[in-house]
């Protein structure tokens, strides 16, 4: 069981406090969704954990080891980051793209081991048949799947995904969600940011809600996505439909008046 412990994390941009005294502990084996209004600090939180941003103060520990003190390659091997709207600069083939995940492993694993990891990742995402296709010929949904394969090929302990479902149709959204959940079930950790409340309720085992850089809710979907919390955080009137059934739905009636 792996733990990502965040204590008293603060991130400043100029005068503004983007993250203000964040205390949260993520656990492996489950999918945690981070929600919140635009500008709440969700992306900043994930980027800080991935080592892309340097916080003003606070600690981020991975199983007791501070990620801020880790060498960047060592951290990259353990924590994978899928950014929002990822770019692919060159028309390379799918296999090469997935293979980029092994860059932090240079000098640590052999070429054979790298190739095996890539093959495994492509198999688990069912894209082996695309290995020679050029990435620019992929559709949006195919690209998303390929980029997930790229993340899996690094065989990290933790995946941080910033809005991995944005721009995907419902079928591809569920496809991506299934892959991430399967990854988490395998004993690793997944933390993702998301806007779709219903999807969050469906796939997340745990929900953390950020508002103005602070944690305002932390619990199961039922605990964290109550109408009262949704009203105070998003300013919307919402209710759960079919809460205990197979497919819970959070219906949004509209913006809260007053």
């Amino acid at each position, binding site marked *: 069981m792996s733990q990502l412990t965040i204590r008293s994390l603060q991130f400043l941009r100029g005068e503004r406090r983007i993250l203000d005294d964040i205390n949260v502990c993520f656990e492996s084996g489950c999918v945690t969704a981070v929600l919140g209004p635009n500008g709440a600090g969700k992306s900043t939180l994930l980027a800080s954990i991935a080592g892309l941003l340097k916080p003003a103060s606070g600690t981020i520990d991975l199983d007791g080891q501070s990620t801020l003190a880790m060498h960047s390659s060592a951290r990259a091997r353990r924590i994978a980051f899928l950014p929002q709207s990822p770019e692919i600069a*060159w028309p390379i083939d799918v296999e090469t793209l997935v293979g980029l995940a092994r860059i932090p492993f240079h000098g640590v694993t052999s070429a054979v081991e790298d190739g095996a990891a890539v093959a495994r990742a492509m198999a688990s995402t069912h894209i082996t048949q695309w290995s020679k296709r050029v990435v620019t010929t992929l559709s949006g949904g195919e690209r998303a799947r390929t980029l997930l394969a790229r993340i899996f090929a690094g065989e990290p302990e933790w995946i941080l995904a910033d809005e991995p479902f944005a721009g995907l149709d419902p079928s591809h959204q569920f496809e991506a969600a299934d892959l991430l959940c399967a990854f988490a079930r395998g004993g690793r950790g997944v933390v993702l940011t998301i806007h779709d409340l219903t999807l969050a309720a469906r796939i997340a085992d745990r929900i953390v809600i950020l508002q103005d850089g602070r944690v305002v809710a932390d619990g199961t979907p039922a605990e964290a996505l109550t109408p009262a919390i949704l009203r105070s955080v998003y300013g919307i009137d919402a209710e759960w439909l079919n809460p205990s059934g197979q497919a819970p739905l959070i219906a949004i009636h509209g913006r809260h008046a007053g």
Partner: protein
Amino acid sequence: MTAPITVKGRWLVPALLVLVAALACVSIVVGKVNLGWDVWSHQDDVSRAILVELRLPRTLLGIIIGAALGLSGAALQGYLRNPLAEPGTLGVSSMAALGAVLSIFFNVAGMHPFVLPACGVLGGLLGMMFLFLLSGMAASALTLILSGVILGSLAIAGISLALSLSPSPWAAGEIIRWLLGALTDRSLDDVTIATPLILVGSIATLSCRRALDALTLGEVGARSLGVDLNRVQWQLALGIGLIVGTSVAVTGIVGFVGLVVPHLLRPIVGSRPSVLLIPSAIGGAAFVLCGDIIVRLLPGGTELQLGVVMSLIGAPFFFALLQSMRRKLT
């Protein structure tokens, strides 16, 4: 992970090496004076002087500088994620020339043979730093090219001014020689100076190859793969600064090699940046040797500058490339 070269591309490096070897043989033999193929066995001091002191340095420099320019073009394209990038078009070569010329203007170039190339390297470094400053501000390809135009114009104006005002009486005639470089009449001394500097620069550049691959996923993606972009920036600036600065100091500005060669090789080896580096170097050597041979075969008393041939090939090429990439510009 070692770069998986597609089966199709595996023949490229050996083929290019054979090409360079063949062109080198031709380069040794071609010139105003007919040396004949048996020159290696029978030599009097005159043909030895031509062979060893004139043809050999010219051929060696063609290879070294061609390789350097090809490598720097491929590396810069990988870093900036843009196939239009090249030290010449982005103003780095012009800044290197300015650095070298200023050492003539301030009369320090004669103090030691390494002073002029060192000043060229400083100029190249400055050009690279300016480029990164601009690209670091998330500049689009259009902005980069415009900045190259501005840097290039500034440098050329500075070069013309410095050489016109230089105390050396022959400096004013050198302006065109700097702007359109040549391999004519270079000596083994030039080879001795250029080789170590370009070697160090090439090593620095090549050691960035994994970072260049990681940059395929963008700056955020690369950093999430553990790449220290700051360090890579400095390393690349140093590497390309050394390569371009030294080349320009020895021959003057020879443009478009770094633009044309990677573009020609991409369909064969693929677009992965690290895989392009070495083939672009070898291809660059072949390209420059070829151009220099053409220069010597053209009729006429004085030799045409190599930079002219390169521009005649490269400028239309650049234009065609621009056309095909119109949407990527903004």
